[in-house]
């Protein structure tokens, strides 16, 4: 379009089948629109989004020499891109198109007031015409995507996503805050419903990802900063000191053997002990120990140095410092996983941490594990005896208006699996599973439930206890109402296992803050669309894998990790992203440099820069600007304008509507 050229508008009113036409008199809308100055053609059609509808626009642009197009139909969220492409095919800049929403904003909400709805549709179309006169062509720019991905979190989700991206030929940096990758899955003894050994199916993947030529592993490392936007993220990592030189250490374990100091073992959920210099677990990847300075006598008192003395490769380095690592990546996958709900603090009525023999499901996994604190024997923590009566309580904190409103999605089957653990380790034990509902929705889960339900010594009680108490002899007991028998039963178990609810991993909050990605009301990362875009986030180029998005079992986690990886691969293999043109633009002549807009910008897109003449002005980084319009609304001098939604355009629409 040339400046000063005559404005020629085409208006197209859609019937949307009967969605619009049954309420709005479309013929009348066309008639009114055609009377407005600058409108050259006005037509109605049954489905504007159909191929013939779009072709009509393309043909009319050429035949009538149109330079503005308006479609009055559904929400622009639905079909704006469709019509913009049609306009582009007709040879016009796609931003010389305007949409009037006469479906969601009109026919659907005014079903019973047909005449008024028609009037409203006419007004909306006239407002669109008024804005269309002032439309200017906008430019879409292509930005290169760095062909390298960052995966945050080294659990099964992060490992799977990293392997998929690496196998597609792209470079991956996998970051894990703990000394070893593996995550929560590494803690499990067996996985339901097939009961295959968790470590046996996980460790090959851990080794594969660590040896992959395209993968760089950053263990014992935190993400401290992320800047930039899709295609060009600048990431800052902080590698915590292990006090062990990774290039010299062979993982022989002599230091661990010789270390005389112990501390609670976090990997065993605090049940067992580990040394002050320790491997996270025997199959840790990388197999390099780390010194816990809080329990190391050298760091506390300046003496000992046993590990240094006995290390055959002189790998101990007490002077190691935290190391900053900077990376540039094109895509990010968030896979920070989950942590357990703090039942000890939030639900004191269950006595967790107060009574030694009340443990969580994850603690039972460690107890059952051959590498756990009891070497795979189920022994209760209080006296080390084998429990003969075990109660398993489901929905602890989950599905509770006062705690976590959502279902943890694996507690039921985990509880059933835990009942299996007990009866397979202690054949003469009795197990009571207290449940509210059993949800065995996954593949093979119901069959597994059926199998365990048929064990004579596993009983399912339909009801949850209100509180767990201790009697004068120190034994624990609780009453539970069983809806199946309509009786209150008193249980005196030797061991109680709480299937606790889950929350986002504690590290997620910090990462979400630096990334500025949206968090849902449940505290987990919010996906862009719950059904159709489950792996994308509100930040372009940042994808979700696993329990960071919400509770998930292993099959769902792995499936989503694959989906997130393929989204990242698609982005990197295309090699570029198109910028959204609806960004803010500052007129430097009008800008007084007051800086009001800068702190208001939620995306850090505005900075104040000094011009050559010394004047300070606001500058918009278009790669970060999301076009929210906050700066334009706040600017006292009208210097900040959102392209495609300028003050002039919006005021013209308002004037028309008010007429």
């Amino acid at each position, binding site marked *: 379009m040339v400046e000063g050229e005559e404005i020629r508008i085409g208006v197209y009113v859609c019937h949307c089948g009967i969605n619009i036409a049954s309420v709005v008199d479309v013929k009348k809308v066309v008639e009114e629109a055609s009377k407005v100055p600058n409108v050259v053609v006005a037509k109605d059609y049954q489905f504007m989004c159909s191929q013939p509808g779009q072709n009509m626009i393309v043909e009319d642009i050429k035949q009538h020499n149109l330079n503005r197009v308006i479609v009055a139909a559904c929400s622009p969220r639905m079909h704006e891109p469709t019509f913009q492409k049609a306009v582009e095919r007709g040879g016009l800049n796609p931003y010389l198109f305007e949409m009037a929403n006469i479906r969601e904003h009109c026919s659907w909400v005014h079903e019973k007031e047909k005449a008024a709805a028609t009037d409203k549709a006419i007004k909306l179309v006239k407002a669109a015409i008024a804005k269309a006169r002032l439309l200017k062509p906008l430019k879409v720019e292509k930005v290169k995507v760095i062909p390298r991905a960052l995966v945050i979190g080294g659990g099964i989700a992060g490992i799977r996503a990293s392997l998929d991206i690496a196998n597609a030929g792209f470079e991956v940096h996998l970051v894990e805050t703990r000394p070893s990758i593996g995550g929560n899955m590494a803690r499990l003894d067996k996985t339901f419903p097939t009961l295959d050994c968790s470590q046996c199916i996980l460790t090959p993947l851990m080794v594969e990802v660590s040896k992959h030529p395209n993968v760089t592993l950053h263990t014992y490392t935190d993400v401290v900063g992320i800047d930039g936007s899709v295609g060009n993220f600048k990431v800052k990592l902080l590698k915590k000191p292990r006090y062990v030189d990774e290039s010299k250490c062979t993982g022989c374990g002599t230091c661990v053997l010789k270390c005389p100091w112990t501390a609670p073992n976090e990997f065993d959920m605090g049940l067992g002990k580990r040394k002050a210099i320790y491997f996270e677990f025997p199959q840790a990847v990388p197999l390099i120990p780390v010194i816990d300075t809080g329990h190391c006598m050298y760091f506390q008192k300046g003496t000992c140095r046993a590990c240094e003395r006995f290390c055959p490769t002189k790998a101990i380095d007490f002077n190691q410092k935290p190391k900053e690592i900077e990376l540039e990546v094109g895509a990010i996958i968030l896979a920070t996983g989950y942590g357990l709900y703090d039942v000890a603090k939030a639900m004191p*009525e269950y006595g967790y941490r107060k009574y030694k023999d009340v443990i969580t499901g994850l603690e039972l996994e460690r107890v059952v594990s051959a590498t756990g604190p009891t070497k795979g024997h189920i022994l209760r923590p209080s006296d080390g005896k084998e429990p003969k009566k075990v109660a398993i309580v489901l929905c602890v904190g989950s599905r509770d208006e*006062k705690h976590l409103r959502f279902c943890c999605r694996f507690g039921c089957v985990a509880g059933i699996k835990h009942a299996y653990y007990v009866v397979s380790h202690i054949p003469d034990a009795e197990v009571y599973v207290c449940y509210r509902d059993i949800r065995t929705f996954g593949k093979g889960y119901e069959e597994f439930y059926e199998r365990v339900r048929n064990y004579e010594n596993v009983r399912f009680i339909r*009801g949850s206890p209100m509180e767990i108490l201790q009697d004068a002899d120190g034994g624990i007991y609780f*009453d539970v109402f069983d809806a199946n028998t*309509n009786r209150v039963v008193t249980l005196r178990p030797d061991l109680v296992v709480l299937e606790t609810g889950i929350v986002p991993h504690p590290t997620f909050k910090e990462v979400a803050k630096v990334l500025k990605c949206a968090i849902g009301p449940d505290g987990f990362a919010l996906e862009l669309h719950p059904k159709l875009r489950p792996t994308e986030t509100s930040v372009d180029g940042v994808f979700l894998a696993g329990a960071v998005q919400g509770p998930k079992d292993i099959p769902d986690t792995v499936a989503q990790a694959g989906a997130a990886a393929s989204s990242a691969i698609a982005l990197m293999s295309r090699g570029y992203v198109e910028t959204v043109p609806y960004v803010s633009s500052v007129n430097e002549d009008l800008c007084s440099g007051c800086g009001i807009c800068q702190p208001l910008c939620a995306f850090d897109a505005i900075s104040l820069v000094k011009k050559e003449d010394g004047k300070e002005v606001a500058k918009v980084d278009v790669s970060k600007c999301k076009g929210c319009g906050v700066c334009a609304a706040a600017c006292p001098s009208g210097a900040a304008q959102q392209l495609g939604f300028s003050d002039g355009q919006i005021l013209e629409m308002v004037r028309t509507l008010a007429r």
Partner: protein
Amino acid sequence: MKCSSGCTAAKVVDKYRPHEIVALVKAGYSEELINSDVIWACSVCLKCVEYCPQRVSPFEVVMTLRNEAITRGITPPKSFVEMAKSIVKVGYIQEPMYIMSKEFEEVSRTELGLPEMPKPKDIEKFKQHVLSVGFERLREVV
């Protein structure tokens, strides 16, 4: 059904199930309950309100049913009436007497070093207040 698992009254009155009362009211069986003795078993410990995972308050449902019963002139069970009478008379459901030890020995509060139970200072004034907050609706007490 945490309410019925931990209900103090249910431990004594087997028929009393808070979850069942809520379910019956929801299903439209309020009439049946208003005329039943079961609604008078609640001991107002409020544990059901505290622990219900759905923020349902069986206690409030039971109180509403009781109020409706009284409004209609239905007489509560004798035990409940006796308790109400005792409150109006001495300020307690039952006058505190002694405490039974684990060895079945009677011990007084003073022997245990416990303070005296507080009593209404002016029993007449207390009676007036108790009556005016709803006890007057209970014919048997007045």
